[in-house]
């Protein structure tokens, strides 16, 4: 176990570097938004810093504890997540789950506000890894292998979808798929599921104006409504204006109202503007290295649960990052996916750090028992 300690150390270091990078980027992108609102310029960055500290402490504790605990806690965790996801859907809970931008995605507990769907990314991966590890080769059958997963996950995804948060529901589904795929589920099953869910997906997109607009924008930028193209276009303007070396930290001007959510959903655009292609490449390579280390840890984990857990969690970081960057570069339709470690949002940051902690725990083989 000693020989792979460098991977876990590097992973932790990468996480720390990314968090610091993120704090700086959040400060730069949010200061102009906060000042006219009568807030101190560093307000967003400070709140993010508290999230980072809390997440760091939890991650350290998790990293030093046995990851098999997650296996045992998988069912209760999933139940708790489902409960949390249910809260915003209930009509009498508006006081603790207010609508923000037309969606009720946050639950407030007074001292802390949680985004249950961020939590779902983690618990679904844990639960899938647990069940897939338990099923072993049974996973290749439909009735005993795939069907139980579908039975439990479909209602959960529905809860996320009705927040409404289609992209997060899709992301969670993809993560579950990654775990099952790694565990050895049949490719034929995936094809059937994909074909079967296509009409569902289509009707989901068509049911909401903003989703349709975003997809149309993506498919045909010229013909779509002006406001829908605006975000993507401004994101490209920002990134493009950064050219090779960027305009300099804090010097970006797209955040002057041109680019909405320059500190969260489009923070990569801000980074591209201020740090240029060099900064973009460094950022992507840092995240890529993180994912590569995650898969290395997965490959050499000391249990099947550990392997599947590491793959799923690494995938959650990697896929989120690809989605986020793809959106800002107009490679994907606009969705509100955060960039792990970087984007403003304490739930997202906390979960990223938790993932890091679990990966370190897996990597250091804190299972106690060998295979």
């Amino acid at each position, binding site marked *: 176990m000693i020989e792979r300690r460098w991977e876990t150390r590097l992973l932790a270091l990468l996480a720390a570097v990314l968090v610091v990078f993120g704090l700086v980027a959040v400060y730069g992108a949010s200061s102009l938004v906060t000042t006219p609102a009568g807030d101190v310029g560093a307000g967003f960055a400070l709140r993010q810093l508290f999230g980072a500290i809390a997440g760091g402490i939890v991650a350290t504790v998790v990293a030093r504890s046995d990851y098999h605990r997650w296996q045992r806690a998988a069912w209760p965790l999933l139940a708790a997540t489902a409960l949390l996801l249910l809260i915003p859907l209930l009509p009498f809970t508006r006081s603790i789950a207010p609508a923000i931008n037309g969606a009720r995605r946050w639950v407030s507990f007074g001292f802390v506000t949680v985004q249950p769907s961020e939590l779902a990314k983690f618990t679904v991966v844990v639960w899938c890894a647990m069940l897939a590890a338990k099923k072993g080769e049974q996973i290749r059958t439909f009735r005993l292998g795939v069907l139980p997963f579908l039975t439990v996950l479909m209602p959960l995804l529905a809860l996320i979808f009705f927040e409404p948060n289609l992209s997060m529901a899709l992301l969670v589904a993809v993560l579950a798929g990654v775990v099952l795929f790694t565990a050895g589920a049949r490719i034929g099953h995936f094809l059937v599921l994909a074909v079967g869910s296509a009409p569902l997906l289509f009707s989901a997109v068509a049911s909401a104006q903003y989703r349709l607009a975003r997809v149309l924008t993506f498919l045909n930028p010229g013909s779509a409504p002006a406001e829908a193209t605006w975000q993507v276009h401004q994101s490209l303007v920002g990134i493009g204006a950064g050219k*090779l070396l960027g305009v300099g930290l804090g010097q970006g001007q797209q955040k002057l109202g041109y680019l909405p959510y320059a500190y969260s959903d489009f923070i990569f655009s801000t980074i591209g503007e201020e740090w240029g292609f060099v900064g973009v490449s460094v950022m*992507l390579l840092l995240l*890529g290295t993180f994912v590569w280390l995650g898969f290395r840890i997965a490959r050499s984990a000391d249990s099947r649960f550990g392997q599947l857990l590491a793959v799923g969690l690494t995938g959650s970081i990697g896929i989120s990052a690809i989605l986020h960057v793809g959106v800002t570069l107009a490679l994907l339709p606009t969705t509100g996916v955060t960039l792990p470690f970087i984007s403003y949002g304490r739930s997202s940051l906390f979960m990223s750090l938790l993932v890091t902690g679990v990966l370190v725990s897996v990597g250091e083989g804190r299972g106690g028992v060998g295979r």
Partner: protein
Amino acid sequence: MAKLAVRLQVIQAAMFVGLVALIGRAAQVQLVQGRRWASEAQIQRTEHIVLSARRGALLDRYGTPLALTQETYHVGVAPNELRDPERDGATLARQLHLALPDVRQTLSRRYAYFAGPFSAIQVQPLRAMRGVHLEAVVNRFYPRPELAHAVIGRVGDDGRGASGLELVLDSVLTGRPGAAVVLKDRAGREYESPARVIAPPVAGSDVVLTLDAELQDIAQRALDDAMRRTKADGGDVVMLDPATGEVLAVASRRRDGAVRASAFTDTFEPGSIAKIFAAGALLARGLVAPDERVSGEGGRYRLAKRTIVDEEPLPELTLADAIRVSSNIAIVKLAARLTPAAQYTTLRDFGFGAPTGIEFPTEAAGRLRPPVEWSRLSAASLAMGYELSVTTIQVAAAYGALANDGILLQPTLIRQIRGAEGDVVYRHRPEPVRRAVTADVARALRELLRGVVEHGTGTEAALATFPVAAKTGTARRVVRGRYAPGQYTASFAALFPADHPQIVLVVKIDNPRSGSYFASETAAPVTRSMLEQALAARDVALDRARLSTAAPRSPAAGPEEYGGVVPYVVTWPYQPDTAVPLFPPLARPRRPVPDVAGRNLREAVHVLHRQGFRVVLRGWGVARRTSPVAGDSAAPGSAVTLFAGPAPTPRAAPAPAPAPVPVPPTP
């Protein structure tokens, strides 16, 4: 587990493909298309703005502002953006001088708008307040809009001069606007920083006019009074400093309310006030001896097919008599000795038939026909002041030449131009046009004019204190090409004082309908009233030191004593009380001190000036009482102390409407 490793490889490969795709796309956007995106960013975020330059001010000769450019503000408030509506509402009410309940009421709307306009000082504390949006408006402000309105003119909606001096001086007053590039956000709000100033604005030059606000005020009021009394169609008053050609006051009024500087733009046949120039031609050529007499012809003199009439004939007249009683017959008979060329040249030399060159956009040239176009009667007509048309300013300039020992000066309205940094870029110097007559002839002509006031048609203009030289003119008016029956132009040209004149004053009244139409009874008393007020006013550009030497009627003190340079502005060297003995203690009847309590200061001072009192001011605001008290009597020219205090309720009630000014009966 081999299977797991393979599947993991697949996922890892997919991720790697994603990463490569993202980096490739980033390279495309940033490295290949970067320039295009950057220029688009530049275009959408920056804006070229024009930094407007302040338009120069117009000031009177002592620096009293007549036209200023000020920035005022409208205040818009978005009540939902206010941090503390209660406190901010109170601040707004206090700063904008509005009633608090009204402000609260307005703030209950979705967007509150206070049109104002409010001054920069008023809105300064509001700048930092969230939810308050200031809208700056640059506007031209005329502190006393009625003062010399037509001459000063106005600016158009585009901020450029549209009429009068604002138009003439537009290129001087307009500065050079600057330019800057500012950063703007999506909502169009501009950010102070980073802003790049390409060229700073250069403020326009300030122009100091020759006008004397005090004299201008006196002239306008006197003209208004005269118009009211005579029910005239219009009138002009021009006051000129003969030593420099500087116009001290120019007032024009039309009964229809039209704002027109008719003193510069409207021509009229001068009538008898032009007789002095025929006399000048005769004297200059030695064609008449001082004691030479011509027959008065019993008041009717037939010349060709025309009969020339004198209203009050004398049996025999010298040239002095002809001017004094304004005898048509005598001046026609004498002027017959002149060749047409000599008569024409003299009038031409005094500036008739050509624009004076004063800085006014639409100055009229008047008309003086050359001898080849004359009829047989033209010489006689011209001697009487007919068959030529002149403007009031031309008459003033020509009489100025008489006062200035025969040298015609170009009249001017501009005394000084100061650049944006206060440097003087132009200073007016007297601009001689030509010598019209010799100094001796000019002096002789002034003596003739003096006779008019002492014993002739101009006695109504006589002052007890100083001798005045003047000439009356009552000319028939031409309406639609023919002489209109019963319509006259009454005019009066005066030199004050007669020795070494300091003010040339020309009054013209068009078509007086009420009472006498003779200039001696219409224009002459107006002149006296103005001169009295000018003497009583403290700040008028009179060289009182020289007045005092002139007073004893000794022609000793000449301009030579001043090194040949006439100091046309000398600050009042005496304390008001010590100045009183300057006026000869004539047995003038004492006058009652009027009651001015409750009037605003300007009105009060004006009323006292009209009575011939000098005013010593104590305090500021509204007139309270005087010393001597109202109803008491004091000698004209003596000082009356006016005590003033703050208005009792300055905002609730406007300043008390000025009661009709009691006009002292003209003796």
